[in-house]
Structure formats: C-alpha cells, structure tokens
C-alpha cells in the first residue's frame, strides 16, 4: 500500500459501523463522517503494554508479553492465592477494567488455547484436558494464521477449529506447513511451548499482600523485615545465599518500583539484607513514593547460589574476607557498584588497558600482574595515568630528540634526566581504535582519513625527571610527531 494511511486500531463504535483494522483511512473516512482520527504511536503502545505486564507481576512472577496487545500470565500454582481460577480471572478483569481498559481473558492449559479463547470466548475457564472441545466451535480466525493458510482452509470448506482438528495432521502439514500444525496442536492443548517471561524468574521470593494499601514508612520497613526473615529462612533451609536481591513495591494505582541490591557473595542474614535495602532506599535519587500506598510488597532472591558449608569457617582470614565483602557491598549499594572498583590485570602492552577497573563485588580468578621494571630498578610505570594524554610543547636539543624543556598545563619544566624510548605499538590483532588513545581534537575529515591509511601508530615513551624533582611519563607519537604527557610518577 506504500505510504497510504491505514486504520491501525478502532474502538467499539467504529467496529459496529463496519470499519476494520487494516482498512485504508480514506476508505474509512468515506464510510463514516465525521471520523475522529488519532495518529498511532506504536512505541507508546508498547510501553503501555510493558507497564501493564509489570503491573500483572502481582498475580504471578511469570508474565510474558504478546505484542501488540496481549499478555500471558502463567498462573500455575498461583490461583489458590486468589481463591481459585474463577475468582482470579474475575479479579484480573475487574482490576484492569477499573483502570479503563477493555479486557478479554480466558484460562486454559496452554498459552495459545487461552489466547484463542480470550479473543473469541471471553471469560472461559477450560478444565484440564478439555482444550480441544473448548476451542472446537471457534471460527477459523481464532487460529490467527496467515492469510494464505486461512484462504486455503476456507477453500477446503472448513469453518471451525474443530473441523480443522478432525483432518489428518499429516495432510495439514503437507498443505499448510509444519509450523501450522505445531500451532494447532498447542491450541488444541496437545503440546505446549514455554513462555518467555518478561523478567527472569527469581529463584526464591517472599511476598505479602495487604487488603488495605500501606503508606507509612514504619509499616513498609516492618514488612521488609518480615520478608527478609522468611526469605532468609528459605535460603537457610536450601543451603543457598542470595547474590541479587530485589524488593518490588506494587503501588495500588498500578505503578511498580523495583529496588535491586547486588551482593558480593551469597547472603542469607536477614539483618544484613534489611540494612542493604534500607541503605539503597535512602540513597535513591527520587525517593520511593508510596502515593496511595502499596498493596503488595515482594522480596525476591533473583539470583541464589549454593553456599558451600566448607567456606563457613572460624578462620580469621576467612572472617576478614567476609567483612571486607560486606563493606564492599555496603559501599556499592550506597554509591553504585560501578563506583567501587577493583582492578583486573589484562594481557596487553597498552598502558591504559593494562588494568581494567571492574565492580569490586564481581568475582574474578587469580590475578597475574607483571612487573615492568627489573629488580632494583626505579618504577617503569607511573602511579597516575592521565585520563587522556595531554599535548605538550617541547624544546629539544636535536630535532625529534628527547626534550630538554617542555610546557605542560602552563608550566615550563626543565628536564634533567630522561630515559627512553620504550616503544609501545598497538597490538595488530586487536580492533581497538587507536584514535581513542591519541587525542584527535580539531582534526579535519581529510586528516583523519590520511591517518587511517597510515600504518598502526607507535608510541615512544620516555621517563623524565625535572629540575624540581617531578617525574613524568611522556610519549611521542611516531606518526603524528607530537609529544604528549601521559602519566605522573611518584
């Protein structure tokens, strides 16, 4: 249809007037005057659907998106919490209707069966094993297959799902493809395809529902404490510890807030959990807004790992390691885990890449740091590396020779000792752009292209000591032929 405008969605009145989705807009306008048209915004629709999914998290943690306007809730083992399937279906529908949505819902043993029923027989609850008979009277459209297959089925004189199901599957597979048959089997309840949950399922969780939403800080804290205690009990029983905790606050008006806390090692102490959570809550940029109150608070151990009993010991070293681990956890919670870092050795010559700063909570294997200096020699690498090498202007006694004097940050430095060069070339097997390593401010496109064609740049590093005793690490870029300040020795 090219760029023609098409009806994307319509309300009940529009549907009753005979308009349909996919109809050219000009066509619809010709049929109905006046017609209110609102430009579709698929992104906003998607975001809304995701928000609804988050909201549905209160019924079961396994919620899956079915764009553009569907949701699957896996309520296996959850229905009894709401007084049975019928009561749960009623509650879901009522609560969503109250928020102004038009809802169609059904409960069935398989996802696609429930989907077909929700669309064509709202409110159905299929008892286990009765999927095939429940969907049998539904029209072909409930199969939701592509136009070609739909036409083929119509030509064959089939009008309901039941009629299609009666045909031999091998026959259908021949004519309509294996995918169609798989889909049909799921609709009939004979097979199941696992849902892809929108969020990873937590390993363990504890939650508390409130008939009256809670608003006060005290009530929230008390709830968190109770949840932390029951979660820690489960963890204790299973011999596991939480690596990633998430407190989920379901606000009565549908907003869902999640507070995540990462820990360096398996955690099962309720008091520590509570302290980390409270610290996180205190550190929030915009504090948790209870609004009209929370009607459900849940504490999830999103990630739980086995705690090896052998690691719990009375060894003083072990205790120290644990205490430092907790300290790192606390700092990470308070300032963000990217701000509390440890260094991991890298096998590279490039000075700025030699040690990569990673969150200190993460676990990494044994480290192998290689000394650059010979025993007894002065340091060959500076204690401080500038975040970007800074250009310096240089006066040398011979052209391209080591500098006698240079100016850096408006100060002139007279060089007394200098040693070099130590050649460091970009490793040819790596894809890192050297441009990131050498400042290229104010470079024209042409210069950039020229430099890209040149061979890989090489830095010649020099150690220099000035009159006043300052020790610097300088380099000359072989191709740019400029001098840069890169580091400061102690």
């Amino acid at each position: 249809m090219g760029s023609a405008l098409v009806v994307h969605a319509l309300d009940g009145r529009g549907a009753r007037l005979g308009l349909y989705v996919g109809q050219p807009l000009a066509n619809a306008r010709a049929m109905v005057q006046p017609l209110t048209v609102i430009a579709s915004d698929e992104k906003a629709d998607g975001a809304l659907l995701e928000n609804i999914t988050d909201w549905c998290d209160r019924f079961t943690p396994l919620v899956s998106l079915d764009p553009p306007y569907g949701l699957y809730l896996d309520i296996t083992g959850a229905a009894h919490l709401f007084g049975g399937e019928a009561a749960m279906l009623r509650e879901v529908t009522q609560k969503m209707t109250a928020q102004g949505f038009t809802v169609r819902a059904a409960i069935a043993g398989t996802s696609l069966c429930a989907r077909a029923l929700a669309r064509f027989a709202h409110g159905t609850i299929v008892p286990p094993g009765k999927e095939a008979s429940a969907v049998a009277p539904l029209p072909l459209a409930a199969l939701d297959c592509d136009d070609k297959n739909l036409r083929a089925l119509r030509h064959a004189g089939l009008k309901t799902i039941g009629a299609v199901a009666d045909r031999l599957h091998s026959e259908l597979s021949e004519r309509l493809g294996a995918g169609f048959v798989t889909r049909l089997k799921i609709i009939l309840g004979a097979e199941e395809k696992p849902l892809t949950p929108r969020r990873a399922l937590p390993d363990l969780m504890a939650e508390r529902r409130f008939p009256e939403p809670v608003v006060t800080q005290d009530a929230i804290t008390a709830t968190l404490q109770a949840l932390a205690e029951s979660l820690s009990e489960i963890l204790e029983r299973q011999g596991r510890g939480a690596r990633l905790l998430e407190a989920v606050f379901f606000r009565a008006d549908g907003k869902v807030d999640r507070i995540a806390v990462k820990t360096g090692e398996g955690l099962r102490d309720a008091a520590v959990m509570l302290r980390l959570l409270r610290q996180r809550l205190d550190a929030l940029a915009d504090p948790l807004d209870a609004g009209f109150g929370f009607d459900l608070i849940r504490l999830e151990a999103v990630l739980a790992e086995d705690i090896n009993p052998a690691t719990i010991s009375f060894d003083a070293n072990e205790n120290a390691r644990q205490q430092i681990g907790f300290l790192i956890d606390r700092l990470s919670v308070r300032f963000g885990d990217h701000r509390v870092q440890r260094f991991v050795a890298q096998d590279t010559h490039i000075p700025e890449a030699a040690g990569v700063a990673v969150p200190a909570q993460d676990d990494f294997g044994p480290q192998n740091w290689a000394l650059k200096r010979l025993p007894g020699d002065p340091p060959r690498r500076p204690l401080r590396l500038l975040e970007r090498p800074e250009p310096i202007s240089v006066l040398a006694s011979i052209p391209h020779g080591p500098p006698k004097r240079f100016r850096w940050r408006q100060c002139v430095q007279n060089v007394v000792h200098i040693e070099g060069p130590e050649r460091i070339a970009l490793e040819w097997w790596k894809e890192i752009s050297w441009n990131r390593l050498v400042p290229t401010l104010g470079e024209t496109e042409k210069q950039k292209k020229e430099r890209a064609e040149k061979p890989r740049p090489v830095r010649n590093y020099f150690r220099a000591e000035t009159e006043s005793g300052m020790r610097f690490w300088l380099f000359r870029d072989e191709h740019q032929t400029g001098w840069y300040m890169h580091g400061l020795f102690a």
Partner: protein
Amino acid sequence: MARYGLPPDRPAIPLGHPQADSILGGGLRPGALHEVFAGGWSASGFAALLAIRAAGAKPLFWVRPDFEGQEYGAVSPSGLLELGGDPRQLILVRTRKCDDALAAANDILACGHVGALLLEIRGQPRSLDLVASRRLSLAAGESGASAILLRQSAAAQPSTALTRWQVTSAPSRDDDEDWGNPRFDARLVRHRTGGLGHFLMQWDSEHAVFQQAHPGAVAAAPLHRPADPQIAHAV
C-alpha cells in the same frame, strides 16, 4: 590537654627511615589520621606510599571524588605494582562529591579488617572541617585502620590529625645511575605526640620501605625553623 583524643596505643609501623622512625616513636601509628599536604604532582605519591606501608597485607581503600581523576590522573594499578604495592589489595571508591567521599571514608574506617584508607581531597571543601576530621580520627582509632588524608592545592586547616606532612618531590642525585626512584623532601610539620622533623626520604620499591636518601646536590632547607609557617601553626 594535648593528650586528649589521642588514638589508642598500637604497635607502630616503621617507615624504614631511621631518623623519621625515631621521631615518630617507632613509625607511623595505625588507627590514626595522618595528613599529607603535597606540593606538586609527584609529591602526592608520598601519600600512596604511606598507605602501602600502612596497609601491609590488608586491603587498601583509595577514595577520591571524580574530579580528582580528571585533574591528577587515574590511579594506575601497574604503577602501584611498580612501587611494590599489590594491585589485588587495592579497592578504588570514586564518589561524586566530597561529602560522599567523607561518608565512604567513615564507612571504610569503621571496618577493622581494612589496612589503610587513602582519602584524596583537592582544595578546601567546606565539608572537610574539624568535625569531619575528628570523625575520621575516631573511626580510625576505633578500628585500627590507618587513615591517610591527601590534600592537594590546599592550606592547612584545624584538624585532629596525629601527624601532618608537607611534602615536595626531591630530584635524584645528578650522578645517580638509577635515577627516578621516588624521592621526597618531607617535613613533619605537626606531630601530636612528639617532635617535628625534616627528612629526605627515598622509597625502595623492592622492599616497599622508605630509606634515608643521600642528599647529593640537594640544598637542605633550614632545620631550625618551619618551612611553611602557615601549615605548621594551624592547630
């Protein structure tokens, strides 16, 4: 009156420089706050070396607000290794503001298993006042972790630090083949439990200790009066 608020007695950590150790009463006192005022870029390394010395085999926490990194460069683990430190011990905490850095420092000092804390603060932030410094001193005294406060581009303010050092980097001797070892002109300008001093110290990266440096061509500053009266006389 001078004894009030002194840290509990713990075995001192010898720096390795005989004269300095004898004035300090055996070495750097753990569980106390030590201030280093660095003149120049290289001199700030002195604080890192004190921290390496004080940390021993325990973790070394380096806390700095973000802008310190832009101005003075990022901490390089390879550089620490070259100086005889162990990058595996190093935990870097970068904070957004000076207040956060102080809060982090207090948290860290509260943990008895921390070896040393190096807190790097540039200039004279309002939040680093006498109260903040007393808090650091108390936390360090309680846990036994050493707190090294590195001040750059700053003048001394009233504080509860046990020692205050004013350090500039010293040039290597002209005839030194192995020039380039960390060498400092360090003045002990405040010491709550003993005398002051002025030392020329060289760092031995191999053994991670200070040594007495042979003066060579360095013109020694007069010992009979403080080099920077302003810093020496702040309470």
